């Protein structure tokens, strides 16, 4: 397995006093969390409890109503090159270009975010996720599950210390879920960090925490 070290070393990831409102509903307030290198955080909660909103916020894509998120003691928005240096994010959408082939999707993304390895690395990763032989196929001809795998391959190639994954297992079959589980285990063992939402059991040995979001209440 071609696993190099991270582009940037893992550091403490911390959020203090987060509060979020969506429309008239207060999703959560005064939420604190700390994640150290080698730790995993599973965000759980019923539909509509704000899991996706929280993850987007932790990835620096949206701003909290109150509170601050820190990487290595620095507020996320003050990081010199933005939150993308320390974290990789995969949301509900796979962010693939239908008109590009599987391999092109990976190589352009790698060159764009500065983690570009050789095309061989991308091919090895595709092979691991069961997409060997699909590298020249335009993404539009892939199934939902295959697209998800390409998106995950892109994330795994980014070599960021913190992964923020929103329902990564969606549309995946048992075999790929098992491959991912070992990849996550590997990531945690090497001191990486992982924030994940899933309705499945995250079966990983190590320092795992769970954050249970309460069903949302109406704000006063």
């Amino acid at each position, binding site marked *: 397995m071609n696993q190099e070290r991270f582009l940037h070393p893992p550091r403490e990831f911390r959020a203090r006093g987060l509060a979020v409102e969506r429309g008239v509903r207060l999703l959560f307030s005064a939420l604190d969390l700390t994640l150290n290198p080698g730790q995993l955080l599973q965000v759980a909660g019923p539909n509509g409890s704000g899991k996706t909103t929280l993850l987007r916020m932790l*990835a*620096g*894509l*949206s*701003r909290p109503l109150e509170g601050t998120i820190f990487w290595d003691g620095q507020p996320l928005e003050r990081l010199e*090159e*933005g*939150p*993308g*240096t320390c*974290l*990789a*994010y995969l*949301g*509900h*959408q*796979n*962010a*693939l*270009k*239908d*008109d*590009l082939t599987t391999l*092109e999707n990976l190589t*352009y*993304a790698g*060159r*764009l*975010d*500065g983690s*570009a390895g050789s095309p061989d690395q991308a091919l090895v990763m595709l092979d691991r996720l069961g997409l060997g032989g699909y590298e020249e196929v335009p993404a539009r001809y892939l199934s939902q599950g295959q697209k998800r795998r390409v998106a995950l391959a892109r994330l795994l190639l980014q070599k960021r210390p913190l992964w923020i994954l929103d329902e990564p297992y969606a549309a995946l079959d048992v075999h790929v879920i098992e491959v991912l589980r070992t990849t996550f285990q590997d990531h945690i063992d090497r001191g990486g960090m992982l924030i994940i939402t899933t309705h499945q059991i995250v079966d990983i040995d190590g320092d795992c925490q769970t954050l249970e979001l309460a069903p949302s209440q109406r704000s006063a």
Partner: protein
Amino acid sequence: MTASLFALLQRDLVLTLRRPQDALTVAGFFVVVVALFPLGIGPDPEVLRTVAAGVLWVAALLAVMLSLERLFADDYRDGSLEQLLLVPLPLALLVLTRTFGHWLVAGLPLVLLSPLLGLQLGLEAREIGVLMLALLLGTPILSLIGAVGAALTLGVRGGGVLIALLILPLYVPPLILGSGAVDAVMHGSSAQAHLSLLGALLIFALVTTPWATAAAVRIMLD
């Protein structure tokens, strides 16, 4: 850094080549609109010559606007825009690169087509030269301003019409200066003043609009 920006530009251009109809519609629209004018106002060469600069410029504005909706909308829909926000580079630079790609595909073909259409409307060689120069300076301004509008209407239903309402008023200065430049040489004076102002406007747009576009993208994704 330049490697990242080049990768973005290259990806955008490859995507355009794989779907050439988008770029061809813009150029086709430009040609058709200009070709319709002689049919509408009659074949009198003197009249056509007088309105030529204005017609070409207005057609260029509308053609560029036609292409703006897609500038960020596809990336917004498939989630690529979120990933772009996480690229460890200033978003304004990424947006500027994307806008440059848009100009190469939508603006530059109009500049290259304009001599042919100018000839059709009876412009003389000197006037056509100035027209091309004015469009060369002016169409990047259209793309830059348009990018702000495209970003502000992300995810809004009927965004295309909204873009038009938002940015057409902002297209007035390049329109006046651009067609004014051709009018000036037509009446025997120099187009230098118009072209200089157009150049100044381009520099101003280059420096300011990417930041506005980046801010708008952030807000719309929040």
